[in-house]
């Protein structure tokens, strides 16, 4: 039921959504999250970003959280695609797609998966900047707010939502 892919090439949000919902009368809600490479703001903008990953573990770690999402919410389908390699601002990075009968489950599962992707899927971003910093690359630092977002899901009552 779940589709998990790591790939260098771009993905097509509409095609993935169609694959998951076409010809089915039981899906009432589809949520997609698309993460996009940002250019940043200011004089030293981001010129490009390279995503490194741990092949094998990345797929397994995503699959573990997809399974957990399927246990916590009533899902009719899940697709997670994460790209690796070099990307420029505007390029797609990650897609999370959840389908359910009702919107509450689809929203909660998509946000849960994104929070865990950020903090526990083995990917690392390295940035190249423009301007005076053009020669330097730097590894993006993990943010405390991402860990805080993930920790929300360990509180009681974060399973099925009221919005079913």
């Amino acid at each position, binding site marked *: 039921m779940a589709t998990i892919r790591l790939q260098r090439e771009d993905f097509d949000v509409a095609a993935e959504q169609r694959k998951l919902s076409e010809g089915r009368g039981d899906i009432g809600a589809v949520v997609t999250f698309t*993460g996009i490479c940002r250019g940043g703001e200011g004089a030293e903008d981001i010129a490009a970003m390279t*995503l*490194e*990953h*741990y092949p*094998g*573990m*990345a797929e*397994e*770690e995503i699959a573990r959280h997809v399974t957990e999402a399927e246990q916590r919410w009533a899902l009719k389908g899940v697709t997670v695609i*994460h790209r690796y390699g070099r990307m420029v601002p505007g390029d797609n*990075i*990650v897609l999370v797609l959840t389908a359910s009968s009702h919107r509450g489950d689809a929203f909660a599962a998509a946000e849960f998966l*994104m929070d865990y*992707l*950020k*903090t*526990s*899927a*083995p*990917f*690392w*971003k*390295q940035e190249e900047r423009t301007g005076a910093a053009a020669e330097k690359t730097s*590894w*993006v*630092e*993990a943010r405390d707010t*991402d860990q805080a977002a993930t920790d929300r899901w360990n509180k009681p009552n974060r399973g099925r939502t009221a919005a079913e």
Partner: protein
Amino acid sequence: MRGKVKVLYFAWVRERIGKTEEIVEPPAAVRTVGDLVTWLSARGEEYAHAFENPKVIRAAIDRTHVKQDTALAGAREIAFFPPMTGG
């Protein structure tokens, strides 16, 4: 632990050590992930630099996240990397 084990490095841990992976054979006294970090750190300046702040080092045994006090027994593949920044 006994015998050889494959160690993988990612992101700036990989850059500092200058290798993507290697086979090591730590002595029996190296029992936990934390022990392995200490033992690797003593192998040279590049390792000492990579592991200078053990608190920010994350580890996985056989592709599952583990803590510093997890035993190495039975491990085939151990990976070290910084906090993740995907998504």
